[in-house]
């Protein structure tokens, strides 16, 4: 009995989501480099951020190669790489000024890739944990850095950010569900149609299942040419 541990999840969406995850990571890498280049922090922090981005790029190139060659990638590897994305983005956010940094926008594509590829429960757990962290970061900023006259506005902004992030995860999952239902209906319809064709004795259906013919039909002209060639060979041999 084979012990295939490459599939952590029974849902096969992750297999089709691999290309989306890889594409999302390329987007995060390019935009991440833009963030870093446009607003560089101190040298030590900058080195660390660039190192992480480049490590992400190499890892993503490996995954891209696997996808291009249509080789299966272990679910555990895909999950680990997606979690690493969130970690790297968090490092960039913290290095770029924490809550005040615009780097938090990188979370949006990462959440999107998660929600369309992984099961709903896992998406809720991972994005929920990250959401709690970012909410805590936001509150720490609000109550230590923001003057009292701006507190209401900044609280509104934090609230809207959290709602949008949850909304992105929900929209990704909802669209995935719509497409899953459409594919299931399409498969059922196809199975019903093929069943009907089989019962009907349709020639088209028989042609699909029938073995290839042994002799290939030839035109009368071809047959005449073949006969003349055969006669000529026979006369030459005699």
């Amino acid at each position, binding site marked *: 009995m084979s012990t295939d541990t490459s599939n952590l999840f029974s849902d096969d969406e992750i297999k089709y989501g691999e290309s*989306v995850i890889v594409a999302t990571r390329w987007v995060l890498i390019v935009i991440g480099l*833009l963030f870093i280049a446009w607003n560089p922090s101190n040298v030590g922090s900058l080195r660390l951020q660039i190192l992480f981005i480049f490590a992400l790029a190499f890892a993503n190139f490996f995954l891209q190669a696997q996808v291009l060659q249509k080789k299966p990638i272990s679910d555990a590897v895909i999950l680990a790489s997606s979690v690493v994305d969130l970690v790297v983005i968090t490092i960039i956010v913290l290095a770029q000024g924490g809550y005040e940094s615009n780097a938090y926008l990188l979370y949006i594509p990462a959440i*999107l890739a998660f929600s369309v590829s992984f099961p709903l429960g896992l998406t809720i757990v991972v994005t929920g944990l990250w959401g709690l962290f970012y909410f805590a970061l936001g509150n720490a900023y609000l109550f230590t850095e923001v003057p009292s006259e701006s507190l209401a506005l900044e609280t509104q902004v934090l609230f809207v950010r959290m709602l949008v992030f949850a909304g992105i995860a929900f*929209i990704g999952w909802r669209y995935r569900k719509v497409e899953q239902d459409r594919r299931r209906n399409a498969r059922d319809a196809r199975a019903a149609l093929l069943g009907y064709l089989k019962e009907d004795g349709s020639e088209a259906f028989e042609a699909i299942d029938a073995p290839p013919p042994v002799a290939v039909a030839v035109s009368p002209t071809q047959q005449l040419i073949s006969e003349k060639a055969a006669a000529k060979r026979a006369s030459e041999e005699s």
Partner: protein
Amino acid sequence: MGTTKGIAQEQAEDIFFGQVVIIWARWVFITSVIILSLWASDTTSEIFIAVIPVALLMAMNFYLHARYIIEKPANELLTQIFAYFDLLVVTLLIVLWPDASGAESGFFILYYPLVLAVAFVLPPRVSLIYIVSASLAYVVGCIAVDASFLANSLLLEAVSLRTITLAATGVLGAFYWRVQRDRLRSIQDIPA
């Protein structure tokens, strides 16, 4: 060998089945606007002024959601009209919000779920126009409030990066649309 559906029929089915995603994205947006409007209003008259556009949005979305439930969803034209109306409302929110507007507004993030939902449902030739429109609406809105942000490197960086990530989110949505479309076509191809 195989009879595949026409492109027009595929697009009609995309709108028919996928419209609920746009509707839910609009509910996320409406919820945000309701809470912001009630939170930011200090007097009863301000509350009533804020509630009017919100009520309009809610009525519009209730109508669309009800049509979807009874399996008579809106067609592509109506879907696009309401989607562009959403962009207009978000842009007005960014331009007119009293405490922080234009490049300093934090509410640009409300564009993201709307752009993503449209990218999931409409074909790329339509959704890419919407993505560009959203990006332009945001930049034009910022310029309309105060064009001096163009000379402020920090604000210019912020606006540029927001626009880039908005466009990237929409493009990723369109890419995922393509992945799902190919999967559905592979199932629906049947022998002639």
